[in-house]
């Protein structure tokens, strides 16, 4: 395994940051459907790309979570975005390539990418 000493060093650095993430800081949740249907349609690369894109942009108050089958398996991979105090937005047929636009336009600038949503395509 990669050296645990390296991991201990990261811990030492992290522990000094007062700003340990707390759930009450979170105002946006990105939820990816990861049941058999979602996984078969390619949900995993989509989820991993959300995590990478958030990290790339240094966004910390957003969590990425998984859920089971959302119920419309033919529209998978599906992603639901919950922004605090706003209506849920459901994206369908997601791909890793679409992730950057969802993060940039919706998460950062507050304007959902209409053309990827279930309303536009479903």
């Amino acid at each position: 395994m990669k050296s645990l000493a390296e991991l201990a060093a990261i811990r030492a650095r992290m522990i000094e940051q007062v700003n340990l993430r707390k759930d009450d800081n979170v105002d946006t949740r990105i939820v990816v459907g990861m049941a058999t249907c979602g996984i078969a349609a390619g949900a995993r690369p989509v989820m991993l790309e959300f995590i990478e894109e958030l990290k790339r942009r240094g966004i910390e108050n957003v969590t990425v979570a998984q859920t089971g089958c959302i119920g419309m398996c033919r529209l998978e991979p599906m992603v639901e975005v919950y922004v605090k105090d706003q209506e849920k937005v459901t994206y369908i047929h997601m791909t890793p390539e679409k992730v950057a636009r969802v993060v940039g336009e919706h998460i950062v600038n507050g304007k959902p990418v209409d053309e990827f949503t279930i309303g536009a395509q479903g």
Partner: protein
Amino acid sequence: MMRELADNILDIAQNSISAKASLVEIDITVSHASNSVSLVFRDDGCGMSAEMAQAVSDPFTTTRKTRKVGLGLPLLKMTAQATGGDFAIESEIGKGTTVSVSFGLDHIDRPPMGDVPGSLFTLVLMNPGTDFLFVYDYDGADFTFDTRVIRETVAPIPLDNPEISAWIKDCLYQEITELHGGLFS
């Protein structure tokens, strides 16, 4: 059929999470000598009766309440049998469940391994309350990844802290790619 075995790994391990396992072990063995890829999923979750264990590889058996089909294990079993492999499930109520499956390594219908490190990383990141033990054996060279060791090293920082999870991701990709000599197939 799943596009890659990595997708099956992610999918089948979810069953253990649903069974409230506190430790999920996944053994992945690639052996050219015995011409097989084998996967073993072992959990300490709630388990199931012998009748249920017999029935779960039928697509019309599921514990789901929303609908009557469950395709995870049937797809896995179908893929194994299509490649000359075996499928077995053992379970005991209150003790846990073990699913063992093998595939013909050089069989033309065997899906590629795919992004196995990505699947393992997803499991660790999305299930912070569950411990995982991964043992990846490639022709006798092996790599063991144990979230209990990592948890102990970084406590009280959670595994989903961005810096810690980045380390976990790098570790899984580096070690597994190295075992495969830089190539997945």
